[in-house]
């Protein structure tokens, strides 16, 4: 880690601050605009020039709840993201344990191969997965989404857990074995307490990814198992755009995860940069 240097001129400092602010505003702008639009009427929403000062209304939110059952979609989102995260952790943790502590000749290759599956566009697997879901009568069910979310996040989960586990000195697990632990005791009494930080941040990240996942929920679910992503999509209809309602629906969809992310951001950042900065 390099020490932070004090810039030589105040001008450099000013430029740096201005750039940082510009980038931050650029990233924040769509969200801010979304937020504003959600509280406008449809007419105000399409006004040119755009209105910055207006009297806010909650009408869009009532409309969204009246036209489509927000709570149903929200419930689906909660259930699919939580259960897919749990399922993913149950599959990823043993894999990461094996690769971190019992390295073989091909461990590295297997890790690379796992990650490479993430390079393939999801649409490439759409037809087979759709057919599989259809044949097993899982279309528009939460179960289908849980399984697909968990599997699509699995490579990232294995990688993250692997890099966390690799930072646990293997002698500690060996000491536990010498002390007489069974495999299950070794995992429960030593590995899990030591790896809890990594498991938590991996879980948090996957929760966010599953919540935001739109491709599979749009293609595999509809009115029954649809998540909030499908709710948003239903407001961008071909006949006429309803910017204000779309914004309200989007805001309602992302609000829970943004709040959740806000409170867990320390864990999340720590998880994503683990091993990189220490």
């Amino acid at each position, binding site marked *: 880690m390099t020490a932070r240097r004090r810039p030589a001129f105040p001008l450099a400092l000013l430029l740096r601050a201005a750039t940082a602010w510009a980038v931050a505003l650029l990233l924040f702008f769509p969200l801010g605009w979304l937020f504003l639009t959600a509280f406008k009427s449809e007419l105000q929403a399409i006004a040119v020039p755009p209105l910055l000062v207006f009297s806010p209304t909650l009408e869009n939110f009532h409309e969204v709840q009246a036209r489509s059952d927000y709570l149903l979609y929200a419930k689906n989102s909660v259930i699919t993201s939580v259960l897919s995260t749990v399922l993913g952790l149950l599959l990823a943790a043993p894999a990461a344990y094996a690769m971190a502590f019992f390295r073989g000749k091909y461990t590295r290759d297997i890790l690379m191969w796992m990650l490479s599956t993430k390079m393939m566009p999801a649409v490439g697997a759409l037809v087979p997965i759709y057919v599989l879901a259809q044949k097993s009568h899982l279309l528009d069910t939460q179960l289908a989404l849980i399984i697909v979310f968990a599997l699509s996040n699995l490579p990232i989960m294995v990688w993250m857990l692997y890099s966390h586990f690799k930072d646990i*000195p293997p*002698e500690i697990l*060996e*000491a536990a074995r*010498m*002390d*007489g*632990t069974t495999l299950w005791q070794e995992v429960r*009494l030593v590995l899990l307490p030591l790896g809890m930080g990594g498991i938590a941040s991996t879980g948090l990240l996957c929760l966010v990814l599953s919540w935001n996942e739109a491709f599979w929920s749009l293609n595999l679910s509809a009115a029954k198992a649809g998540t909030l992503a499908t709710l948003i999509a239903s407001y961008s209809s071909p006949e006429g755009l309803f910017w204000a309602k779309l914004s309200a629906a989007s805001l309602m969809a992302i609000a829970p995860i943004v709040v959740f992310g806000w409170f867990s951001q320390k864990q999340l950042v720590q998880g994503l940069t683990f091993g990189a900065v220490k």
Partner: protein
Amino acid sequence: MAYLQLRGVEKFFGRHRAIKGIDLTINKGEFIVFVGPSGCGKSTLLRLIAGLEGIDGGTLELDGRDITDLPSSKRDLAMVFQSYALYPHMSVFENMSFALKLAKVDPAVIREKVERAAATLNLTTYLERTPKELSGGQRQRVAIGRAIVRAPKVFLFDEPLSNLDAALRGQTRVEIAKLHRELGATTIYVTHDQVEAMTLADRVVVLRDGLIEQVGTPLELYDRPANQFVAQFIGTPQMNVVPAGQLPPGVRQLGPQAAAQGAIGLRPEAVSVLPKGLGTVDGRVELVEALGAETLLYVRTAEGAQLVARQSERTRLQAGDDVSLNVATDQAHWFDSAGRVVQAAAH
């Protein structure tokens, strides 16, 4: 009586044969030290005994029972790791009681055993702390405490002192020796430090390239090394080994015929430095190391060999002075061209 018996033990890492068929008998209560240069296989051999690595050939018997394929947890051995390997999320008490708790020992008995071990190791006031609140030396004592509360069949130490500073290392070494005397437990101790090997061991096993070079008591190894490797590995400063060709004819003739193409080995105390002309080998002082209690003189002979002489008297000699050496040929070790001893020193 054989307590721990290794027969033809082998280990492969991929195609590399790391341990090449080790036969070794360890008696009950013995303190055995595995010593050798890095990469010689001493730690691997310990891990094979511990069950942390699988044995690829041969058998391992403990107390009359074949444990070759038994997992570590069933072997009833305790190990002290170089990195201490304490459980960071547990207090000192929990660290030391972990194995007993797993074995479902009565909590009152556990408390008594842990407290007794803590008292022996001066850890009583630290029982509620976590490892990160302890110094290196204290952590090492907790690691030792974790091993002794279990009263295992064999203690395994993997370079336990190499993370400590020099003063603490000496102190802990003495404590380990004392502990062994009190407990009388069979112990296998791995180190690359020959001082630890010499001071702690009942018997030392010198390893090189996955093979045993020699097994013996510390003084046996010092006085009667089986070959040039052991001779030079044991003892500081190293034994002087001079190729026969660099010896004056007068000295060379004293050795056996087989050493004619080999070398002569002389401990630094078998070489004495005399004023020029009074000894058998002429040379020039290259370096003087005055250590207080003893003085080491590095002398280059006229034939080009460098010899170290150890003497207890202080000296006025300086680098560059011409001297003469007297070598105690009755204390010489003669090696053949393959480095095997053909004639040992008379002791």
